[in-house]
């Protein structure tokens, strides 16, 4: 007779009370998970999250209350959980999991690591740490009604990075600066504008007309004539947008007229751009002011209303005034950080994006919709997170019972599928032989132009952003062991702005890139090319190029699931401006097109568990079978 403690076998119950587990993330899934862990009998729990509590968390992160807004998620989650279950021992870290303090030794302390994250960068990192420490990892994600849980064990299963994820979509600079054709282009522009005016200036986030647009291809002799059209613009060019804005005292009307009148008139002079496109129409503050009709504001949720042009003009004025006074209060050289949940920052982006949409003859969007796209917001509810957290514990119990072979990846559907299942378990795949992370000697081939790629962009764009390293050291395999990049501060900064060719790197060169913290070495083979598409810095060989956007139909549905994504270049358990829960679907960078690439997530294949599921191919019937369609979107990544 098996001895039971509650619902568990005695040996299992005993091991729960002694083993140490790590929960990465104390957001939507993290809160539910902590509750489940203490109730199941886990006694030694460590939880880490760098985020603080926001009002928009309270609809589901039940360990937090209004009075906790602004406090550390990890700390408050620990305190709340202990109130309910004082016998547990919980350690909280208000920190980023990528901090070098959490090294392989730290990970080895645990029997089990459970991810409750919201961004790809942190997931990649924890994946590598668990591979390096050889600790089983349970990975999870949720988006709206959908969710997924999977188990990762070195050598036995696919790792988080075995399946290539859809590339993070960015927009060509000239689309953003000169020829926006979709609302998302205007929203990205407005977010850049926020940083140019109030935040950290970034040369990659220019907002003024791009005179180097190859499509405009004008003659140099015309340049003078164009400069004459808008001599103000000529002036502005020489100083940064921020300096200029400051010199006007952040006068909203002057800013408005530069952005929506002068810059647009300047764009109009690049007439080649408007041969096939509808030309933009400049706006003039003074003219708009005359036309104002004072209508009573409509009822209903104000966020979901689309205002008229003057409404956005006023929103622009108000938000510029608020933000500039915030900036002033912070003193010289202060910078604001854009946050979708900060009302004036969100108002500013809503107003600027809509005014630009209007200038380019697009239908304007409500603040609610702009927020979705600008913040890449994933809808989230307690119910889904509760189900997912429950599944995490069930997988955890199997691992602790030594029944790794019974572990599954489980998908939560929106509606029961054709087999009437809401939860669909699938067999775990073995590691991919082509993975650039979990094979014994990882290697990749990258196509780039060695004369145009700087050492800094190799480090930031390729090794950190694309290959998920935190602090890479790079050595050229040239027989001399030349150090190209050192993770020690100050050692190789002088190399940053030099090109790869300056170091003798050419077609066929091999770069050994090492991340000490992740205990991860990646050999990068360089394939030199001069034929990359516009605005593409590099390509990884052997991966599918960007997929075409999904069909228009059902786009709204797709958007609502994919928009949100907390990914930012900064790995974190929950990056600052972003939300809590996870990303299941695809994650794209903040600027990602709402509509793009999500529905074609690559990691969608799934195999049915032998138990009760026979066919690997699921019949697709009529279009009313919505649940099935959505399955395909759910791909943990």
């Amino acid at each position, binding site marked *: 007779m098996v001895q039971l403690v*509650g*619902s568990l076998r005695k040996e299992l119950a005993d091991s729960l009370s002694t083993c140490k587990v790590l929960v990465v993330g104390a957001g939507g899934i993290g809160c539910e998970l902590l*509750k489940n862990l*203490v*109730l199941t009998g886990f006694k030694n729990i460590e939880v880490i999250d760098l985020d603080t509590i926001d*009002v*928009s968390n*309270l*609809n*589901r992160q*039940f360990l937090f*209350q209004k009075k906790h807004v602004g406090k550390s998620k990890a700390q408050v989650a620990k305190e709340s959980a202990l*109130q*309910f*279950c004082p016998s547990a021992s919980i350690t909280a870290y208000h920190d980023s999991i990528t901090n070098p303090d959490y090294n392989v030794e730290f990970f080895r302390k645990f029997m089990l690591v459970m991810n409750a994250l919201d961004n790809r960068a942190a997931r990649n990192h924890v994946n590598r740490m668990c591979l390096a420490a050889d600790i089983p990892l349970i990975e999870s994600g949720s988006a*709206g*009604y959908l969710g997924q849980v999977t188990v990762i064990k070195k050598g036995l299963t696919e790792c988080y990075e075995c399946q290539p994820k859809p590339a993070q979509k960015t927009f060509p600079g000239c689309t953003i600066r000169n020829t926006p054709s979709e609302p998302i282009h205007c929203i990205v522009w407005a977010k850049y504008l926020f940083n140019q005016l109030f935040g950290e200036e970034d040369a990659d986030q220019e907002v003024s007309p791009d005179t180097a647009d190859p499509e405009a291809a004008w003659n140099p002799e015309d340049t003078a004539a164009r400069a004459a059209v808008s001599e103000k613009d000529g002036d502005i060019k020489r100083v940064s947008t921020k300096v200029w804005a400051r010199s006007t005292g952040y006068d909203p009307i002057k800013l408005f007229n530069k952005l929506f009148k002068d810059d647009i008139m300047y764009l109009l002079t690049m007439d080649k751009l408007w041969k*096939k496109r*509808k*030309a933009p129409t400049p706006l003039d503050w003074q003219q708009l002011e005359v036309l104002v009709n004072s209508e009573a504001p409509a009822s*209903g*949720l*104000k*966020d*979901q209303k689309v205002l008229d042009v003057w409404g956005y003009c006023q929103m622009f004025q108000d938000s510029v005034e608020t933000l500039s006074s915030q900036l002033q209060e912070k003193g010289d050289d202060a910078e604001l950080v854009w946050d979708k*949940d900060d009302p004036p920052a969100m108002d500013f982006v809503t107003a600027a994006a809509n005014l630009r949409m*209007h200038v380019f*003859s*697009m*239908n304007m969007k409500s603040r*609610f919709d702009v*927020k979705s796209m600008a913040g890449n*917001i*994933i*809808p*989230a*509810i*307690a*119910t889904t997170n*509760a189900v997912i957290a429950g*599944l995490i514990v*069930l997988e955890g119990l199997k691992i602790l019972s030594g029944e790794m072979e019974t572990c*599954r990846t*489980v998908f939560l559907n929106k509606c*029961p599928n054709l087999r*009437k*299942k*809401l*939860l669909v*378990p699938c067999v775990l795949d073995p590691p991919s032989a082509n993975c650039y992370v979990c094979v014994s000697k990882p290697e990749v081939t990258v196509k780039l132009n060695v004369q145009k790629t700087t050492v800094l962009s190799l480090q930031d764009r390729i090794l950190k952003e694309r290959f998920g390293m935190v602090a890479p050291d790079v050595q050229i395999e040239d027989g001399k062991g030349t150090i190209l990049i050192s993770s020690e501060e100050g050692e190789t900064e002088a190399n940053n702005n030099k090109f790869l060719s300056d170091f003798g790197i050419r077609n066929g060169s091999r770069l050994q890139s090492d991340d000490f913290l992740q205990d991860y070495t990646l050999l990068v083979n360089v394939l030199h090319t001069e034929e990359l598409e516009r605005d593409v810095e590099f390509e990884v060989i052997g991966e599918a190029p960007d997929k075409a956007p999904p069909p*228009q*139909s*059902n786009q709204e*549905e797709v958007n*609502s699931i994919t928009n949100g994504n907390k990914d930012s270049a900064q790995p974190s358990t929950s990056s600052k401006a972003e939300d809590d829960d996870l990303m299941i679907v695809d994650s794209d960078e903040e600027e990602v097109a709402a509509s793009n690439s999500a529905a074609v997530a690559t990691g969608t294949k799934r195999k049915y568990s032998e138990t009760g599921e026979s066919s690997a191919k699921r019949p697709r019937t009529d*279009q*009313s079978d*919505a649940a099935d*369609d*959505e399955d395909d979107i759910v791909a943990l990544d």
Partner: protein
Amino acid sequence: MAATKDSKEQKYDRQLRLWGDHGQEALENAHVCLINATATGTEILKNLVLPGIGAFTIVDGHIVSGEDAGNNFFLSSDSIGKNRAQAATELLQELNSDVSGNFVEESPDKLLDNDPEFFHRFTIVIGVQLPESTCLRLGMVLWSASVPFLICKAYGLIGYMRLMVQEHTVIESHPDNALEDLRLDRPFDEFKSHIKSYNLSIMDKKDHSHTPWVIIVAKYLERWLSEHDGQPPKNYKEKEAFRQIIREGILKNENGGLEDEENFEEAIKNVNTALNPTKVPTSVEDLFNSEQCNNITAQSSSFWVMLRAVKEFVYNEGSGSLPVRGSIPDMIADSQKFINLQNVYREKAMQDAAAVSKHVESLLQSVGKPPESISEKDIKLFCKNSSFLRVVRCRSLAEEYSVDSINKDEISGLDCCCFRFFSYLI
């Protein structure tokens, strides 16, 4: 008031993006009854309190035991010995101050003995770990009062739930792959004259490439119909020929190549769905034929009154079609052209809703109810969703348990028909 609305919008932002403000409104108007604050029960209630139901009432005659405190997150060791309904209400209430929490320290059986009508007030009743006899008694009370009843049981790592409701009507069913309602196959007069206002052959390049695809398809369809005895393209071959005709309408550049006209590409892409014949979906047709629709009484709910009014509309003003939905998809067009087109559909939708409203009025009058008992806003929403209306019906528990043909052993096992609704065993 505005301030509370704003803060609610902030707090509920992530879920409003899932179920919208109507969904939220429905949630906030709900009063949920939980019978038995077990671990399963409080977990369910937690997931309802967080997103902001209007109110909950816990009915529980039990005293908190040590076991309860051990497996229920919303009961602590301090609550041992207290009434379970009260103890759980206190902790669940802390989760959301917008929710009103109530408790009744009595067993459901006692309430059923003394005041069965107590349960009529709820939007839904959730019964957890109830014995079969209580389920049957309560099931009967709730069935006749048309209150949905959700039965849940959990044993260790397995569990089950079963929903019972005589009839649940859904206006906004949020279909995933709804076809647009464009009426290209049966254009209404206002749309016809709007199409006439366009002349693709004399437009300049900019206007030509910013004409909405709906207009383009409508224009070429007119031509096709006149050349094909009024028969639209039906099969693949004809549709392909129709696409080719549209393709030929794309402007040529000076070298004879095709201009880049995305609106025409959009038109070609949409041919298939745009030519779908406008008709009343069979699911709605079935509802039209149901007893509740044809027999409107003073007791009929507003759903059935409005459905009947829509039916009247279809057979009269609508000439066989449901009211125009009034929304159009996003498409490539300049703002003015898009707005003009949108207005044509919107105004027609308003006209249709007004006609339906007249029918509602006379139906209400015929059963002696005031016309304002159903609001214009509700009628508009109903018309907008008229192709997606749904009615969910279940079998009553009593009926299910009395069926002799079912093997009793099977019922007592976990494999009974409850599982037709949901079952999640992993």
